């Protein structure tokens, strides 16, 4: 089993294999499932992601039971159609899908956790954002998810993907880094470039706290997925341009873990710090959950 990013890069180079193939082989080995079983399971995840983003822009969009979030994917779609976005359409289409996925999540709709539900918009945001630009086939998209997964497992096994343990850096940070690495591979980059994109993306989000208003996966979570997506695309572009990240990916993972351990509980998914305890955050909490809770 690959326990470090370095091992993944070396294995891909030594065997002249794409990273997604390493992921599929590892999965078959670990779970004793056939290639077809592993493939169809990932395809089902992709279908879930597609259904979520499609649902997010039907009619006026989807809204959470609290009404705190929803409808923004539709606004972004309309804005994109005017063709005047500042950051370009690959970026804004990615952002639309990231926000849309998390609006579906907040509405208690069905999503695929990547690696978590709170961060479930980031990986599909990047994937669907680059789909048209890179003319990705369905097969390519499933490959993207396998590559993301292999990088994500290294984070999960060496640090954490839980906001309650490591803050939002462990969720959006991990998702963004996984997606950045997979985007580089999808664009034809080398395994080293995937690793640089990964470390750049995670390094950029180090220290990000988990501070859900009222404990709800809405504010700031939905918008953090937009930033996770944008950060992944920037990190992937940097790596593809040949910009290296001097701190190796495995060391960035280690530092993410250490930063998480130093975070007080108030900033780790308790809703007791950050924007959750701003006057407005507290007012929202009291209105929705009652003042006694």
């Amino acid at each position: 089993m690959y326990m470090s990013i370095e091992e993944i890069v070396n294995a891909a180079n030594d065997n002249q294999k794409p990273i997604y193939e390493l992921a599929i082989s590892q999965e078959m080995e670990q779970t004793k499932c056939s290639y077809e079983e592993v493939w169809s399971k990932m395809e089902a995840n992709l279908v879930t992601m597609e259904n979520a983003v499609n649902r997010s822009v039907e009619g006026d969009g989807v809204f959470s039971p609290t009404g705190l979030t929803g409808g923004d994917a539709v606004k972004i779609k309309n804005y994109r159609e005017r063709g005047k976005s500042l950051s370009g359409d690959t970026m804004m289409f990615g952002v639309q899908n990231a926000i849309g996925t998390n609006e579906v999540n907040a509405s208690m709709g069905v999503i695929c956790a990547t690696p978590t539900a709170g961060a479930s918009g980031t990986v599909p945001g990047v994937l669907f954002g680059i789909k048209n630009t890179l003319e990705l086939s369905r097969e390519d998209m499933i490959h993207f998810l396998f590559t993301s997964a292999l990088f994500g497992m290294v984070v999960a096994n060496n640090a954490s993907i839980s906001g309650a343990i490591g803050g939002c850096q462990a969720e959006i940070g991990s998702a963004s880094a996984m997606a950045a690495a997979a985007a580089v591979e999808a664009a034809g980059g080398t395994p080293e470039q995937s690793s640089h994109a990964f470390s750049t993306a995670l390094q950029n989000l180090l220290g990000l706290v988990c501070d859900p208003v009222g404990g709800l996966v809405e504010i700031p979570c939905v918008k953090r997925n937009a930033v996770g997506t944008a950060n992944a695309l920037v990190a992937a572009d940097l790596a593809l341009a040949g910009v290296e990240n001097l701190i190796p990916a495995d060391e960035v993972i280690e530092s993410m873990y250490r930063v998480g351990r130093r975070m007080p509980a108030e900033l780790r998914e308790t809703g007791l710090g950050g924007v959750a305890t701003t006057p407005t955050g507290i007012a929202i909490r009291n209105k929705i959950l009652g003042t006694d809770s």
Partner: protein
Amino acid sequence: METNATTSEKAKEASYKSCFEVIGPIMVGPSSSHTAGALSIGLIAHQLFKGVPKKVVVKYYESFAETHKGHGTDFAIIGGVLGFATDDSRVPDALKISESKGIDITFIEEPGESPAGHPNTAEIYLGDDNRSARVVGISVGGGLIKVKHIEVEGFQLDPGEMPVVLAITKEDNFEIELRRIFKAYEVRINDFNEFYKEGKYLYQFNLNSQLTHDAHEELVSLGDMVNIIVLN
């Protein structure tokens, strides 16, 4: 001062063994640890109790205690207790469904630290007139859980890594029969423990992979002489 992580505070073994624990599960929102993971802890209680209880008591610790309302943890845990899967569309309605079945449910926010040493800890008690079961589970991220403590038929144990088969019987030497079945279906055993209490044996088999349908059928066909519990 920030220091390097020591080995004692960090698990070096791979907790996440499948890529579908990182890309997945497919689930009803809004939180993988507080909704999908909570449901999975409820599901362990369901598997342990085997049936619909009359009474459920859920104790939350730390992050679970602070945010269970916002994350839908209550309906998720009860969805698990009712045996629903993480992507079952009935999950958000689990509290209403359990009410219609007449199940008495209490949620308690414990002020202290988790007895399992993890911020996402839930303890679930299920009972009816004759029997009870208890589970302490932690939700470690992305929907993955660990079960730290279970109580069933008077036995108390840490069940270790899932999947686990527990066999509770009054028959002597029943372990041999169970091992014969596992061998016949090529089920590899990672760990084994045996407990004895008040005339009953509990055999705990930690399996290397999920129990196949056929192996499960044969275990169940052993009938009344043994209570077979599969936790996964």
